[in-house]
Every structure is written in C-alpha cells, then in structure tokens.
C-alpha cells in the first residue's frame, strides 16, 4: 500500500461521504432556518433520521462561534450555523464549496451547446476543473468520480467470479468509442436542445440518486414514517447496475475505458498535461506488473499512456524497480525547454 494509493482512496471515500452529507445538510439548514430544529430533534429522537440530524447538529454546534448565550441559556447562533450548513452544495456533477464553484466540463459544454450561450457563471465554475485537468490530466476519473471508485472495487469481483469457475470475459472494444459517444451526445444535445449526456453520465446519475434517496428519507420522517425505506431510487439506478454487471462479466472497466463521454472530454482537455508518469527504461525489468495494475488498461511499460492516463499512480505503486515516477513531461514542457531536447538529440548521435 503506497502512500499515494491510501491518499487516493481517502479522497474517494470522502467524496462519497460528502455526496450523502450535503443533502442532509440541506435539510438541516431548512429546520434551522424555520426555527423548527429543536422540535424536530425532540420528535424524531430514537429514529434513524433523528440520529443523523442529531449527529449533524452536535457537530455544527461544536464549530467555532456556532453557540451563544442568551438569557442564561446556551443556544445556536442561528445565522452562524446557517452559514456553516450552507457552505457546500451539489454533488459530483456540479458542486460549490465555499466561494469555489466547480462544474463538470461535460455539463458545461452540454449546456453551452444546447442553449448556444456562454454565461459568465458557467465559465467561472469551469475555472477550477479546467485548471486541474490541464495541469494533472484526467484526475476527476481517478480521484473524484464515485462510479470510478465503485468500479475499482467491483474489479475485485472478477476474481471472485473466477473462484466460482465462471470465467469472466474481457472484451476490448476500441478506445476511440468514447470519443464517438461524446461526439454523438453533443450532436444529440444540439438537436434536442437539452443536455442529454448528463442523463447517461454515471457520476451525474449517482449524484441525483444520492440526493433523491436522502430527501426521500427525510420526507418520510416528516410524514412520521421511520421504518426501513426504499424510496427515492429511480430506475436510472438500473443503469449503474447494468454497468457493474457488464463490468464484472463481460469487459473489465469497460465504461471508463471505452464508453464514458466525460472521461473522453477529460482526456482531450488533459492532453498536454505537464504532470505525468514517466518511465526510466534502464531500470525497467519488463515484469509487466504495472500493465496489470493500470485501471485504464494502458501500458506504462512502453511509456505510451498518452492522454488517457488518469494519473492515479497505481503503476507507480506497483513498480518494484523504481522505474516509474511522476515527473514533468509532455508537449507543454517540450515547448518550454527545446534546448534540452536538442541536447538529448545530440547525445544520441
């Protein structure tokens, strides 16, 4: 377990936690804003919804400046608690944390194509994702995307299938399929004048489903029903089930490698990323551990990762010979130091 791997897993888990926490905070701030929070906590005590709300409330009140004394009683500072609870909103598709608004470039491009407009708010919310992708490449896929995380985990189920003597297939369609999906989706978006790719893009679906499930949970509690619930999930969740079963039985990481229109767009944007995995071929012993480790199915051993590498660092962690490491390279760096390339070319002669 390398340090990078642990950090990446931590970030992925945090994204999932926040995805579920943000709608809870939305409901919490509603009860605080309506001055109903104490009544709700009392009425719901001992139930799951009440427990979740109580945990959020206790955490909120522990934050600096969230409590004040009035008439000899310690109370919530309503304005301050509201400010804390409204700090973050959204999901993996589009989120705001404090003053920073971040929208998936796929959503932004779709909105622009469908409406034929370039609103400033949308451009502003593209700043952070664009900068990160230009610099680091397709890191949304490896560090943020909750479905990428889920598929990394279900990858391991393929081993379990083998144990059950069901040999999972591994179809390998062309990698350029995803660029076709992206192009076709954008044409459809322009024709229908509605952003359609967001309806099949897994992180967008997961975000909406998580949101709906949490809201259904609290809606039920508000109606006085606290039993086990299955509300909120729509049949869009079936698409995720289909993706996962296809992944386990037919083609490893097929969505991320061959189909995902978001991954295609991130790949295109991160084409010239200066931060990338570099191979020191004199150290490489051709053991091919990195090839097996690469979630995107690329070949780090040949240093031919191109724009589809998502800089997850699994190959770096898998290498026992220290032949792979993160470094600065790529077209941008080449432009910055042409002299070095000339030096290199001269030394080769």
């Amino acid at each position, binding site marked *: 377990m390398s340090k990078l791997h642990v950090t990446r897993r931590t970030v992925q888990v945090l994204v999932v936690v926040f995805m579920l926490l943000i709608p809870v905070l939305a409901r919490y701030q509603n009860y605080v804003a309506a001055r109903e929070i104490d009544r709700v906590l009392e009425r719901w005590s001992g139930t799951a919804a009440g427990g979740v709300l109580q945990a959020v409330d206790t955490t909120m009140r522990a934050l600096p400046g969230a409590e004040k004394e009035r008439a000899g009683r310690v109370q919530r500072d309503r304005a301050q608690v509201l400010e804390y609870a409204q700090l973050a909103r959204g999901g993996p598709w589009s989120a705001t944390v404090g003053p920073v608004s971040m929208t998936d470039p796929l959503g932004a491009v779709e*909105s622009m194509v469908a*409406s034929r407009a370039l*609103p400033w708010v949308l451009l502003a919310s593209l700043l952070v994702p664009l900068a990160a992708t230009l610099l680091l490449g397709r890191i949304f896929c490896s560090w943020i995307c909750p479905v990428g995380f889920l598929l990394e985990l279900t990858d391991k189920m393929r081993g379990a299938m083998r144990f059950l003597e069901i040999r999972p297939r591994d179809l390998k369609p062309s990698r350029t399929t995803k660029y076709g999906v992206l192009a076709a989706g954008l044409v459809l978006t322009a024709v229908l*004048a509605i952003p359609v790719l967001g309806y099949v893009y897994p992180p967008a679906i997961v975000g909406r489903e998580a949101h709906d499930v949490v809201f259904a949970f609290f809606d039920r509690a508000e109606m006085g029903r606290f039993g086990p619930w299955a509300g909120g999930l729509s049949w*869009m969740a079936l698409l995720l089930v289909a993706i996962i079963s296809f992944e386990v039985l037919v083609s490893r990481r097929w969505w991320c490698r061959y189909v995902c229109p978001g991954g295609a767009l991130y790949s295109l944007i991160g084409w010239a990323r200066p931060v990338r995995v570099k191979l020191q071929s004199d150290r490489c012993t051709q053991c091919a551990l990195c090839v097996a480790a690469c979630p995107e199915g690329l070949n780090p051993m040949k240093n031919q990762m191109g724009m589809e590498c998502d800089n997850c660092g699994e190959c770096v962690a898998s290498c026992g010979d220290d032949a792979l490491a993160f470094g600065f390279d790529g077209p941008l760096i080449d432009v910055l130091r042409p002299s070095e390339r000339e030096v290199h070319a001269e030394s080769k002669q």
Partner: protein
Amino acid sequence: MSVPGLDRREFFRVLALRSGKIGAGGGLLYGLLGLRPGSALPAGVRGDLGIVRPPGALEEPDFLARCIRCTECADACEAQCIRLFGPEAGDLQGTPYILPADKACTICLACGPACPSGALTPQTKREEPRMGVAVVDERLCVSHNGTGVCGACHTVCPLRNRAITQDYRNAPVVHEEACIGCGLCEEFCIVRDRRAIRVETRRRPRGEDGAPA
C-alpha cells in the same frame, strides 16, 4: 433438463453474458428514449396550472437547454420547497419545480446564486421574480362564497396589500402586476382538497395539447 453440448455451467455463463449485454444496451437505450417530450409528470404536478419553477428561472425552452440537472438549487433552498423531477418526467428529469400546495417558496433567493449554469438568474429584490400568478377560485374561497370569513392568504402574503388586498368579509383580490407567484397563499389556504387560491403559470410540459413550449 439437458441441452446437448451445453452443460449447466456453460448455460449459466451464456445466460449471464447475454442478459448482461442486453441489460446494458437496453438501459442505455431506455435512458435516451425516456427523454421523449410530454411524458407523465409525478402526481401533484398539475399540468393544467403549469409548472412552478424557482424564482429567476429563464423561459421554458431556454431553461431546459441551460439547466444541467445538478442539485445545487435544491440544496441551497432554505425552505426546501425545490423538488427535482424524476426520470418519469422525460426531458424534464432533474430540473427543479415547486409544489406550492405542499411547500411554497419563501423567496430566500438562495437558488439564483447557487445555479452554476445561469438557468436561474440571481434575484436581488423579493418583489421582482415572476414564478406565476395566484388565481382565486371564487366558488371555493369561503370568504368569496359566503360560507365563512378567512383572510389566511392575505395574512401570509409577503407582498401583503400589494399583491393581495381584501374586499368585503376578507375576500382576497389578487393584483397580477404585483404578484410574484411564490405560492405561500396556496400553501396556507384553508380549503385543503383543491386550494381556493392557486398559482398558475404559462409553463407547460412540452408536447401537451395546445401548450406553448
């Protein structure tokens, strides 16, 4: 049961493969086909009255093009009145709406700045948004039909004496030019089955008879 040349393990393997493929393809297709316009709306969204959108929403074809179907406006909403259409609503899926009879907009105006796509224009004055117009049903309203004296809508109206004024026996009179369509009157109307005052908009799901887009 036995099929020549196909043992049990092989059979289940083929079955799993086939169903996996068909399921995945079908899911994708249905996702796209489900976008057909004019699909069924969830219960309670009254097609005849039009959809109430959050304050500052663009006009309908533009709104549907601009909105990226994230959840940010619903998360920001202080009143938690903003709901999101499910997939059964076709091309409206994921877009925000308000059901004033359940929970009306309190015009906190947090949704406008929360919108990353510009589908909601940020509003600064509570008098300015135009979500719809309240319409009184004089046969149902107790103050109008003479079965009682109420005045709840007038009391709860954030633009009291401007958007709603009172006539004889507290009978409400809506002034269209001032009403912003927040729907608080509809939420607190004492006539519960079908409210005696309802927010009407010109936003109708696309494809319905005679409806503007």
